[in-house]
């Protein structure tokens, strides 16, 4: 309940924040929403010597479309995503995701950026961002670089961010017409990590064939996973129940769950299959409008 001591700084510019990160190296941690980090510190499972609170940096809290992308600033809170009309109407998978993350109190502070940057395979946004083919904008000593989401999640609790980099924006390509997405999370109760979660994003053409598809998985592997084989199986296909079931089967095969209190691996694989079915079906309904 009582965090260990640390030094604290609240820079007001990105460059100051990065300078501090360079100065303190491995001992420093970035504090954004803090809803993952602070609980770990309270249990003394995390002991950063230096916290860099980026919440006072201006210009990271916006949600808007620009240049073919939906841009979510690094400090946008889950609650803002949940209540964004733009996201609810055009990016339903992200809306689905935001509203099942932790609980309403956590969502007041938690940020989508932190949800990705924490690198926790149990976090929900990664699956959705994988499905949407998002990009992560990282700002560091050498300026800004854009990391495709597929290469962002390196290992358990490990992302492609360099120690002195800060996640400043998430970019989601604006989906073409006839697109739809959905996120299904199975949880033991409100506030729990997913037993399993599946995000699906699809685009269909005039005669209902699948043009574009993305499937992302939560908490069924050491990192957030993308079900590539399943996606492959759907491309160009008509999304009938047979195709969806086959994709669900493949997705389950691509998941790598391990047993824990949420259930045995076999159950989780079964849930990946079931939730994939549901996510694809809902995504299709939404794509058809």
């Amino acid at each position: 309940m009582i965090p260990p001591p640390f030094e604290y700084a609240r820079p007001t510019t990105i460059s100051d924040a990065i300078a501090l990160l360079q100065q303190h190296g491995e001992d420093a941690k970035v504090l954004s929403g803090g809803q993952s980090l602070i609980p770990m510190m309270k249990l003394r499972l995390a002991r950063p010597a230096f916290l860099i609170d980026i919440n006072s940096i201006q210009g990271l809290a916006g949600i808007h479309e620009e240049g073919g992308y939906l841009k979510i600033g690094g400090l946008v809170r889950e609650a803002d995503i949940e209540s964004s009309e733009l996201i609810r109407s055009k990016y339903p998978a992200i809306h689905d995701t935001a509203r099942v993350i932790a609980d309403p109190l956590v969502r007041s502070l938690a940020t989508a950026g932190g949800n990705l940057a924490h690198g926790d395979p149990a976090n929900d946004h990664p699956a959705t961002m994988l499905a949407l083919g998002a990009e992560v904008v990282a700002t560091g000593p050498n300026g800004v670089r854009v990391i495709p989401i597929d290469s962002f999640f390196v290992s358990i609790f490990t992302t492609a961010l360099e120690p002195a980099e800060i996640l400043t924006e998430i970019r989601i390509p604006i989906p073409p017409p006839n697109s739809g997405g959905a996120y299904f999370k199975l949880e033991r109760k409100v506030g729990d990590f997913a037993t399993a979660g599946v995000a699906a994003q699809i685009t269909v053409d005039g005669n209902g064939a699948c043009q574009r598809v993305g499937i992302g998985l939560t908490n069924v592997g050491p990192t957030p996973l993308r079900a590539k084989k399943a996606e492959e199986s759907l491309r160009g296909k008509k999304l009938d129940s047979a195709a969806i079931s086959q994709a669900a089967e493949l997705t389950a095969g691509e998941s790598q769950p391990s047993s824990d209190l949420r259930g045995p691996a076999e159950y989780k694989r079964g849930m990946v299959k079931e939730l994939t079915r549901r996510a694809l079906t809902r995504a299709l309904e939404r794509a058809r409008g």
Partner: protein
Amino acid sequence: MPVRIEKAFQVQQPIDKVWGLLSDPRNVAGCVPGAQITEAVDDRTFKGSVSVKVGPSVTNYKGDVHFERLDAAAHEMELVGRGQDVKGRGSASMKMTGRLRSLPDGGTEVETVAEVNVVGILAQFGGRVIHDVSDIMFGEFTKRFEQQLQQTAAPPAAAVAAEPAAAAPPAPEPEPVNAPAIFLKALRAAVARFFRRLFGGSH
């Protein structure tokens, strides 16, 4: 929270050479990521520490490694490592067995099994990641062991000495430990890079 992990790999090296490395305590210990040998109690028992970093969470274990079995005839070994968290919040142990089989092509198959057991607060709060973390760490162990087999140049013990801040172990056997400083530096950097990649900065 016991976890069992099996890894097998093949190397284009004769079984005797492989056994030479697998039966070299300091070498094997040196292949465990984050491990440091600090003292040799006897030629089968070593004191040391292991640092396990998972995202923002770091745990340092102090303890010992003992070779329960070294069967040169059967090419089988078994070692048990035990450590207690320096913050007094639990312990971790690993029983590792290794078995070698020579392959028709002159190469060798290395079969290893690790049984990891974590006790204490990490087992309470980290239950959902212990399996994956153990798997990753053991994977890295086998990877390093393979690397050792490849680089015939430097004697394996170098890896031990190369570990950051490792007190040079009193060599229990005559074979001297002297690798060029430049090599140590390179290896240190490599290890540091690896850890950044594996567990590095997340917000």
